[in-house]
């Protein structure tokens, strides 16, 4: 084998794709040719150095894929099977037993509807559909909402069931938030988003604040007690965060979080209705607490994109920014905080965090956080959370 032939076979030899005979010839050539030996040696060393560091896919990705697959399609078998299945199903459905069962179900269903109608009257309101997923334990037992209805995030919002809940504004701190104009806020998130989104500012904002890790907001003005019923969010009427009576799935997941079982919490939040931005936010937080900022930033970023224009997205931008800052990715942090400056309700916080960011970047080298410790080991989460999570208390 000459140098020219060796050159042609070199990559194959490097990756073990040569047949035995050719490989042996290549090796012999290398033994006797310093130039080619150096060439393949250099590439071999390069391969060794340029090992691509592999990272774990984000937690929950697999579940999300499987969930999406379940939703997307029941498997469509080959055409002949489909035809057979359809005719089989059709003939099965026409059996007298099935028909009777169907009538029976309709009867039961109707009577249930009648009963529920009464319950709804007590609640004073049809169900409002918002981003929050799970129904709360009933405020009054008689007026329990059906489990599969999507309920407003706070008792305040749903009990009043007004698009702009006047009473709700009498609630806690987020008074100014109710006046946020949709256009400003969506513009802020649009920088990180693909398409404009609706705004559900008021209810969602209240929910966010009711559920924030800060001291419980007194989200229980008197009107709620009267209106009662139906709804609720995980932060229930009395403003405490302990689940009442039968805990909703959200409550259960939150309980895991507070108990420090972050992996379980993340899984539980992931399992709640997909598209539930609040659950996604809490899932991201759980990943952050359990695995650290590196693992969580993708989650926050994704939520910020998906829920653009909503308080969930703003929280995701903020907490994502803080994580990036903790990981010493300062420009990433800055970009997100700058976007938040355009959101009235987040401006002050963003400004404060930007100041902190400036301090970190300009501080003396000895005082700068050692990025190596956080960056070196993507899989050893314990390195990052202690430093990172202190930001969020």
């Amino acid at each position: 084998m000459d140098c020219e032939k060796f050159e042609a076979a070199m990559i194959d030899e490097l990756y073990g794709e040569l047949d035995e005979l050719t490989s042996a010839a290549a090796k012999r050539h290398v033994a006797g040719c310093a130039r080619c030996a150096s060439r393949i040696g250099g590439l071999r060393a390069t391969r060794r150095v340029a090992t691509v560091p592999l990272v774990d896919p984000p937690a929950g990705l697999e579940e999300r894929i499987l969930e999406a697959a379940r939703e997307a399609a029941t498997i469509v078998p080959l055409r002949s099977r489909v035809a057979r299945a359809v005719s089989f199903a059709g003939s099965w459905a026409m059996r007298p037993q099935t028909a009777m069962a169907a009538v029976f179900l309709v009867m039961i269903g109707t009577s249930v509807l009648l009963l529920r109608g009464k319950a709804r009257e007590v609640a004073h309101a049809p169900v409002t559909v918002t981003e929050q997923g799970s129904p709360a334990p009933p405020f009054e037992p008689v007026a329990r909402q059906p489990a599969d209805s999507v309920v407003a995030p706070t008792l305040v919002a749903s009990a009043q069931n007004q698009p702009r809940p006047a009473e709700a504004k009498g609630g806690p701190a987020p008074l100014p938030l109710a006046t946020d104009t949709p256009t400003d806020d969506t513009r802020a998130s649009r920088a990180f988003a693909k398409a404009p989104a609706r705004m559900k500012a008021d209810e969602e904002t209240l929910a966010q604040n009711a559920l924030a890790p800060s001291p419980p907001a007194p989200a229980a003005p008197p009107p709620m007690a009267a209106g009662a019923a139906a709804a609720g969010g995980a932060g229930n009427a009395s403003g405490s965060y302990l689940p009442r009576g039968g805990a909703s799935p959200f409550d259960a997941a939150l309980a895991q979080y507070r108990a420090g079982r972050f992996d379980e919490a993340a899984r539980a939040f992931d399992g709640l209705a997909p598209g539930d931005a609040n659950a996604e936010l809490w899932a991201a937080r759980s990943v952050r607490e359990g695995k650290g900022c590196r693992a969580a930033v993708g989650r926050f970023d994704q939520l910020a994109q998906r829920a653009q224009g909503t308080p969930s997205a703003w929280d995701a931008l903020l907490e994502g920014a803080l994580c990036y800052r903790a990981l010493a990715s300062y420009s990433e942090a800055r970009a997100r905080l700058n976007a938040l400056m355009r959101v009235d309700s987040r401006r002050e916080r963003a400004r404060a965090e930007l100041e902190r960011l400036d301090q970190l970047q300009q501080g003396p080298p000895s005082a700068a956080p050692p990025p190596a410790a956080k960056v070196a080991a993507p899989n050893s989460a314990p390195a990052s959370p202690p430093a990172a999570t202190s930001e969020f208390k």
Partner: protein
Amino acid sequence: MSSLRTEGTDEALMVRYQSGDRSAFAVLVRRHQASLYNFALRQLRSAPLAEEIVQDAFLRVVHNAAEFKHEARFVTWLYTIARNLCIDQARKRALRQHPSLDEPKRAGEGDGPTLGDQTADGRANVERAASSTEIRERVLAAIDALPDDQREVFLMREVSNLPFKEIAEIVGVSENTIKSRMRYALERLQAALSEFEEYARALR
């Protein structure tokens, strides 16, 4: 992970899936999601986008499962889908006017500080022993700097362990072209990482 191999080949799993066995699909996801994710991550330099790509790719597998012929290789199909999705994303990114959530095409950004950030006075780090972090950052930066057609071959081979023959099918060029691109990629990386090459040689 070894237990996954006892589930059968990818193609056998697809046949089962086509017959309605959802668990077969789950095995395929478990087998390939990590390397697919890492491939997309290094291609697009964005964790959220990589996640999206992986999800979309598997969704397309679901939607088109009935059309898959088991004489074909599943992995070739999967990566052809993912590669096209990556190309679409890159095209979209090029058209976008304002800064995006995605990591910019700067060396190592998003994985941590660059080497430039670390050295206070900007000198090359020849006097210091190279830490594994520095090497890692330089490696990612060097891969990032590869031309697209070289980087995709490099990633498919090094991250996803696809043989050159399959990479050729996925990319749609001859196997020789693929090997040439691989060689160029390695040579570029060699130049970019030359100061660490001595370190690597010393490892042997």
